[in-house]
């Protein structure tokens, strides 16, 4: 299964792109591992994962219908 991930803020400085596709992941824990392998700098980066515009704190099962986003700490205002 291919998961499409959209990326914001300073995390784009690490990935070099604001959208990536990750193959063969079924939950958010796996996604984090796969991202860390592809982009080692992500290991020390602070970010939250949003699934369908809601931040998830626990491991969450993913389907390719979900919208997945990597969100560094907010700094609006």
């Amino acid at each position: 299964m291919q998961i499409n991930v959209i990326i914001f803020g300073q995390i784009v400085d690490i990935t070099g792109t604001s959208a990536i596709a990750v193959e063969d992941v079924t939950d958010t824990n796996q996604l984090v591992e796969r991202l860390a392998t592809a982009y080692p700098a992500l290991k020390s980066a602070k970010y939250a994962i949003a699934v369908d515009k809601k931040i998830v704190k626990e491991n969450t099962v993913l389907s390719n219908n979900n919208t997945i986003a990597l969100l560094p700490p907010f700094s609006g205002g």
Partner: protein
Amino acid sequence: MADKKIKNIFMQGPIPAGFIADSIQKHSTKTDIGAHSIFLGQVRDDIIGDKKVAAIDYTTYEEMALEKMQEIREDMFSKYALTCMHVYHSLGKVAAGELSLFVFTSSKHRKMAIEACEETVERIKAELPVWGKELLEDESYQWKENK
């Protein structure tokens, strides 16, 4: 929430003082309002290392931000006796000295308007997926962090 109209809060570039005046002026027909509370965020020319911040470039995850703002708005209306509430946030480049956030709450009595305004500002800073990139004088940059 699905059938409620989601309001846009984003505007390109700085929030002009004249826009704020128009927004205030429009409330003169709402004669049950006794108090308005307004918060304005202005870009500071902080020194980072030995360089000044010239501007902040704001980006957002718009769909999520608008959905979250709608949730905050609904919470404020159920918690406080508000007559109305308006929020505007800049996207793109806002120079030092310019305004990037405008929160405007109105109520019959001052306590409600003041508390709702303050709480909305805190929630925007903590919960809205918006990122500020501080552009320094020499065209280097640093990502802003909210305290």
